[in-house]
């Protein structure tokens, strides 16, 4: 059974870093997300340090990513405001995409840690909750910055009796963002590991490819929704 350790999955066990008596950090999430952030920053810094008029392969790739994120921002927020929020949308997109793919592409199972397992950071609900809260804070900020106190007018639109529903919406937006990303990534990893425990060779590969595709779509969706919420507030 020793050969099957690669397909083992641990749910709910973490490498705890005890900060104080009551504050625990999930070590594996922090390690992997630090690695992801450093890889992304390194790639972006290397790719943009030597810009040329006629781009090479690597610069071309980065330009494609930039155009993609820019088109998301423009379609959701309109051409006059998008540039203020483009860095935020791009950060969210790259981080989510990087962490989803890091979980699937890097063979973390080969590295053993005392407790828990290294996997995608978005596999931990705390990461996705943090991203979702950031997204909702940013649309409050955008509303206050661009509309001032007139921001509150949107709570009584289109009519006053929708006030409770508009307030509830402020809570359901981050909640659904959170569960959508977390659930998709966990579902992917569970499907792959269940298949791996049944047939460890070749059969799980198509599902893994499907998982790669689905996680890139999820990154796109997260960025699109964060942009759409901002766009809805400032329109």
């Amino acid at each position: 059974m020793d050969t099957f350790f690669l397909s083992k999955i641990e749910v709910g066990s973490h490498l705890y870093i005890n900060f104080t008596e009551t504050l625990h950090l999930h070590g594996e999430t922090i390690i992997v997300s630090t690695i992801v952030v450093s890889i992304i920053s390194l790639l972006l810094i290397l790719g943009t340090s030597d810009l040329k008029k006629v781009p090479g392969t690597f610069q071309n790739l980065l330009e494609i990513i930039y155009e993609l994120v820019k088109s998301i921002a423009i379609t959701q927020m309109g051409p006059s405001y998008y540039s203020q929020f483009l860095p935020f949308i791009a950060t969210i997109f790259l981080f989510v995409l990087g962490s989803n793919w890091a979980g699937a592409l890097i063979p973390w199972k080969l590295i053993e840690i005392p407790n828990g397992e290294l996997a995608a950071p978005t596999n931990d609900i705390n990461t996705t909750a943090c991203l979702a809260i950031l997204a909702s804070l940013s649309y409050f900020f955008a509303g206050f910055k661009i509309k001032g106190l007139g921001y509150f007018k949107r709570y009584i639109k289109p009519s006053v009796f929708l006030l409770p529903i508009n307030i509830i919406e402020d809570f359901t937006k981050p909640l659904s963002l959170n569960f959508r990303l977390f659930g998709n990534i966990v579902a992917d990893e569970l499907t792959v590991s269940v298949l791996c425990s049944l047939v460890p060779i070749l059969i799980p590969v198509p599902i893994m490819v499907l998982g790669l595709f689905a996680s890139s779509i999820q990154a796109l969706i997260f960025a699109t929704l964060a942009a759409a919420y901002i766009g809805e507030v400032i329109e």
Partner: protein
Amino acid sequence: MVDSLIAAASVIAAAVAVGFAGIGPGIGQGNAAGQAVEGIARQPEAEGKIRGTLLLSFAFMEALTIYGLVVALSLLFANPFVG
């Protein structure tokens, strides 16, 4: 005794949660895909745009199933009623 009863109920509840959560989005995705195919058949040059929108709306519908899955997973692995 009580714990095993809760465990059995949780397993059944998890199965029901995923099962029923699959129905609605299944119908919805079928409708959306059918309409998209119709759109492509009528206007083949718009295929790229239609495919992009279709995938995006698929992900939204899939999120509903995923909510059921999250409930099922929390019942199975992080059950608040046991112990």
